[in-house]
């Protein structure tokens, strides 16, 4: 088994994530899962575009009156940076530097929490001014699209935290490296979806 072997930076494989069949299966299976997730978000995007600014007669909420780019810009920066820091973590994983992995994953988590806090504030603000989930078709589709992304962030944060705590003592092996690698793939996917949300929901919303 993988955990019986003690690796050094010299014997550590170039691609621990696909070093055995189990890893190859996880690697491929997770990519396929992300393919399905892409269709899932595509459906949400299509619905949002169809229902954007649609509501009961005389609704005053529009994308232009609602969205404020400065806040969203900060959120975008936090999440994009967190994707970069997770790349650093993977870089250290390839170099068999476990401390580096944990440190950069921790920074990723902190940035993720920053993003999440701002998103919660944003949602709270909308609800506060009357743009609730049930207010209109527009509000339902907006909260469902952006909220589903937010839920992915929550799950990703929980996942990475559990990974870091569980493996803090035992360090890197082929077995644990594969787990870190999959979590970081997931985190990148969350980031990519946000790029589309930023463009389609916020930028296009403020422009048109």
């Amino acid at each position: 088994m993988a955990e019986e072997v003690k690796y050094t930076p010299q014997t550590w494989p170039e691609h621990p994530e696909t070093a055995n069949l189990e890893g190859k299966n996880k690697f491929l299976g997770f990519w396929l899962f992300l393919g399905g997730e892409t269709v899932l978000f595509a459906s949400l995007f299509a619905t949002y575009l169809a229902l954007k600014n649609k509501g009961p007669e005389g609704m005053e909420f529009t994308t232009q009156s609602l969205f404020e780019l400065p806040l969203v810009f900060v959120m975008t920066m936090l999440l994009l940076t967190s994707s970069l820091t997770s790349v650093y973590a993977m870089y250290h994983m390839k170099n068999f530097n476990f401390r580096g992995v944990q440190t950069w994953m921790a920074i990723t988590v902190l940035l993720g929490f920053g993003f999440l806090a701002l998103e919660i504030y944003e949602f709270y603000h909308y609800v506060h001014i009357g743009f609730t989930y049930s207010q209109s078709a527009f509000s339902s589709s907006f909260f469902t699209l952006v909220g589903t992304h937010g839920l992915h962030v929550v799950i990703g944060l929980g996942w990475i935290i559990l990974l870091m705590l569980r493996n803090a003592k035992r360090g890197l092996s082929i077995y644990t490296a594969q787990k870190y690698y999959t979590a970081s793939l997931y985190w990148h996917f969350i980031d990519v979806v946000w790029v589309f949300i930023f463009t389609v929901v916020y930028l296009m919303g403020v422009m048109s």
Partner: protein
Amino acid sequence: MSAIAQKKGFGSALWDWLTTVDHKKIAILYLASGGFFFVVGGIEAMLIRIQLAVPDNSFLSAGLYNEILTMHGTTMIFLAAMPILFGYMNAVVPLQIGARDVAFPFLNSLGFWLFFFGGIFLNLSWFMGGAPDAGWTSYASLSLYSPGHGIDFYALGLQISGAGTYIAGINFLVTIINMRAPGMTYMRMPLFTWTTFVASALILFAFPPLTIGLFFLIFDRMFGANFFDHTMGGNTIIWEHLFWIFGHPEVYILILPAFGIFSEIFAIFSRKRLFGYSAMVFATVLIGFLGFMVWAHHMFTVGLGPTANAIFAVATMAIAVPTGVKIFNWLLTIWGGSIKVTTPMLYALGFIPSFVAGGVTGVMQAAAPLDYQLHDSYFIVAHFHYVIVGGVVLAILAGLHLYWPLMFNTMLSEKLGKITFWFFFLGFHATFFIQHFLGLMGMPRRVYTFIEGQGWDLFNFISSMGAILMAIGVIVLVINIVMTTVKNVPVGNDPWKDGRTLEWAIPQPVPFYNFKRTPLVRGLDTFWIEKQEGNKEGMSYAEPLSDIHMPNNSFIPFVMSLGLFIAAFGALYNGEKAWAVPVLVIGLGITLASMATRSLKDDHGYHIHKEDLMDHKGGNY
């Protein structure tokens, strides 16, 4: 755990079934529960035909009829046809490609239990205030305003079982890509593996839109959202799009594995290599691809406009081409073959004309102007029963006979099997052929009764009589299964004597680790090649005897699915009962906690040592 035979008590046998991760046992679980739901859906069909046997009938009330009609369609598609096909995939595909198990045995078990709990949840609606009643398509304009909880059961139940299907799809994709034995190149994969592969890819991309559509329905009905409510800016057509973007590929998810089973049968019982193998593969992939381009042909009458209708009409007609390629290849496989008309072969021979008839009416409906006439009439009912029953169900019954010896090491009676076939086949045509004409005469679908003297009386009566013949056929099949199980005569290796692919080369009963040594695949129909060369063992090997790594059984998939099952009750009664939200939270908590347990607890499996393998003959325990 040891490989040595032990007699087990009922408790430990049950525990074994609840925790198993062995693809062969999960196959039996799929087959048994799919078979159960098949019988439930069949009883619902009989009730429908009894109600429609005579005009102005009052056997069922209008509301109850709607519920039975909805549950018949939903049950047959989601809980009977797909799971039974998954049963065959699980039983056969790993053996066909020379693998010891699927890529993710744990997820395989999870997929089954999600499907199972979803199906149970959906059917509990009968006992908890009424079943869904908006048709299996559950168009939002109807389902949003359906009183009671029927639609909630539909949306939540399908959500849970759909998650299971999605997981199973990914599992098969990875299994087929990564776990093929040495020499098993893509163009040497048996057709059933190929069709499983393409159907799994369709599942991967078709189920997420359904998930989203169902979530919209759940949120609209239970949590105050407004996706489909036009007074709040919503749009009910969104449901139709999402449903059919899923729904049309779903048809191919069902029919492609059916094609695969028939391709195996034609080659085995014509004792001839499948004609046009590469064209068959190409046609399978092309059907899968085109399957995503045609969903709006279900919505011609919605008013998407002539341009959209024209594009979708042409795309739909294009599917007839690869399907025709397949039909001709099957015919040419039989041509000049040394044919043995066994029960599976009988079903396969019956399949060709039945399915062609269903395909021809499909092309008729693809012509959008004609579809305006046919839409929502019994012509549509006749068409989709010709492709689903004439294609998928015949394949399921053929596959049951074909793969029964592989799954249970006994042989279903050929005599009773042929009796079943003739009752079922004649009953099927009697039931549905005449419905084409009922449709052309103007009878709309989904009506609970009709007024006499419109010229529909006799045809409806004939249709109901046909349904009785089908029921007799199924009863004979059940007797056959019971008798075969009671007699329990083992059949041994290569039960059909003409097996061509790896699954027939394996010792019977199949050892729980499948292959003692990973086989070397030397060509298409590798077992046939070995037999031709006089290899008594039936296989060449790619490796020396060594330790085999096996996964541990796990109870977590059951608990994970149970959590969602509990949570669904919370969602269902949200805003109505005080305990709803706590139950929702507890249920989701159980699922999340078991996910965390799975992630945090190491589970490396165990090894069977080669010394133990040496004199192990096979058999389960």
